[in-house]
């Protein structure tokens, strides 16, 4: 019996436990996690080398923002949802068109937002 293909999702989050938790949650929700990238460089590498159907981006990664990743995702046509601990006005403009979730959020909300992005 053919196993339905799982969607591969990239998680970009610099806090290790939050990233870990998110990976576990999304796996439980039926996604295959490409990886948890804490930096722009790692994320871009993963994006380049692995299958990536969707992404969850933490806007702020310590010293840098994930804006370059957002740009790369847009060019690659990969839908994504952004999450942040800051307020909406404080996010770079690369995130203006993506749905933005405030931390902390329920996994169900994230999954719903991801599926909506996928179907657009």
């Amino acid at each position: 019996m053919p196993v339905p293909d799982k969607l591969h999702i990239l998680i970009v989050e610099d806090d290790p436990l939050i990233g870990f938790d998110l990976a576990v949650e999304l796996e439980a929700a039926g996604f295959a996690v490409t990886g948890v990238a804490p930096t722009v460089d790692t994320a871009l590498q993963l994006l380049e080398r692995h299958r990536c159907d969707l992404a969850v981006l933490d806007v702020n990664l310590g010293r840098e923002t994930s804006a370059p990743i957002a740009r790369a995702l847009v060019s690659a046509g990969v839908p994504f949802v952004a999450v942040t601990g800051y307020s909406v006005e404080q996010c770079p403009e690369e995130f203006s068109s993506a749905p933005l979730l405030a931390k902390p959020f329920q996994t169900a909300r994230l999954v719903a937002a991801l599926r909506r992005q996928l179907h657009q």
Partner: protein
Amino acid sequence: MHGKPGVSIAPGMTDDEAAYLAAIVHGSADAILSTDVKGVIRSWNGSCERLFGHTAAEMIGSCVSEIVPPELREEAREIGHRVGMGESIESFETVRLTKQGRPIEVSITFSPIRHTTGAIVGISEIVRDVSQAKKAERSAAMLAAIVASSSDGVVSKTLDGTITSWNKSAERIFGFTETEMLNRSIRSIIPPERQPEEDSILSTVVSGAIIDNFETVRVRKDGALIDVSVTVSPVRDTAGRIIGASKIVRDITDKRQTREQLRTLLAEVNHRSKNLLSLVQAIARQMTRHGRQLDLGRFLERLQAIASNQDLLIQNDWRFIPLGDLVRSQLGAFSDLIGNRITIEGPQIELTPEAAQSVGMAIHELATNAAKYGALSNDDGHIMICWSADRQIFEMRWTEESGPPVSPPQHTGFGSRVISDLVRAGLEGTVEVLFPPSGLRWHLSCPLQRISRGRIHARP
């Protein structure tokens, strides 16, 4: 005129004409008195009586020095001498005394009185009380001093925006000197896109209203833009008509910078708080996977471990946590056993906040586990914690010995996931967890740059 009647000084003057001139002096609102060349008072009109309080009867025949303050008598004598030589002195400002001894500021015009022969026979004094005027002058001088010394720029302008005054602080704030700005338009310090502001300022002022602490931007002489706060008030003439405006300008660049720094800081606080909440959510969630009940005690202990990490971060300005401090902090109560049942060895490494979280939580789990089942659960067990940083590789080991016999755990709870998966993923390294009978062994290896951005000191 009170005095010797019938004395005609001018030739051919009739008694009527003399009487007429006398009436002018008598009825004059100015205080007019006259003395001989030696200063003896010969005449004293009604206004003198009102000004000084002495009657004519009291003064005629007395010396004029009676109304001169002692310290000014020398001055009065000198004037008497000069006028006696034929000099007229106009509007001489000095002080005289009333009958009560009260000093009054006066302005006196002294003129020689000449006989038809040309000889000087006396001195006339027209005395004006200038105390009110002097008071107003002093008031104005004080206000001028206040404006001059004010640390705010004070500028006045006419209703068409022409600058009529420009104080020292305005020079300092804008870089233009008073000479450069007088009679120039105020618009020269307003940036092009804000010119309409001047129109609305003027119309507000013309209606008699005050503009209070209006924050805007102006231009310095060097072209730089500065943030300022402006207060504008109408200036009225004595009839109450508005003839211009006065502006107080304060440079608020510092204040604005401070406000922005605060805003950034508060956003940062908000962000960190949200992250901590997400962390708590993550722990609770991961502890209750697969339908497990929340072990509240363990949950709270883990929150405490996070809190201890925070304290260490804050002590180091949120930049890093020294590994030695982290290990000691996460050992908690067991840190008493360091040097005894617990050995710590390794160079001082500054961990990034993210690495500190992973490693800190792992140490917490390992310590809790050791206390429950491992080397700290009996009286003889020993733990060796060591780490090294050679050739860009970081290695850390937790080795337990002489505890009760161990075996691999049955299920992977949150704790076991923390010491393995979490650390592995967070640091992009390898983690090995072994359960030989002698005791648990935990070994982490990862690139040094994943764990630290700082210096490494030999001293632990």
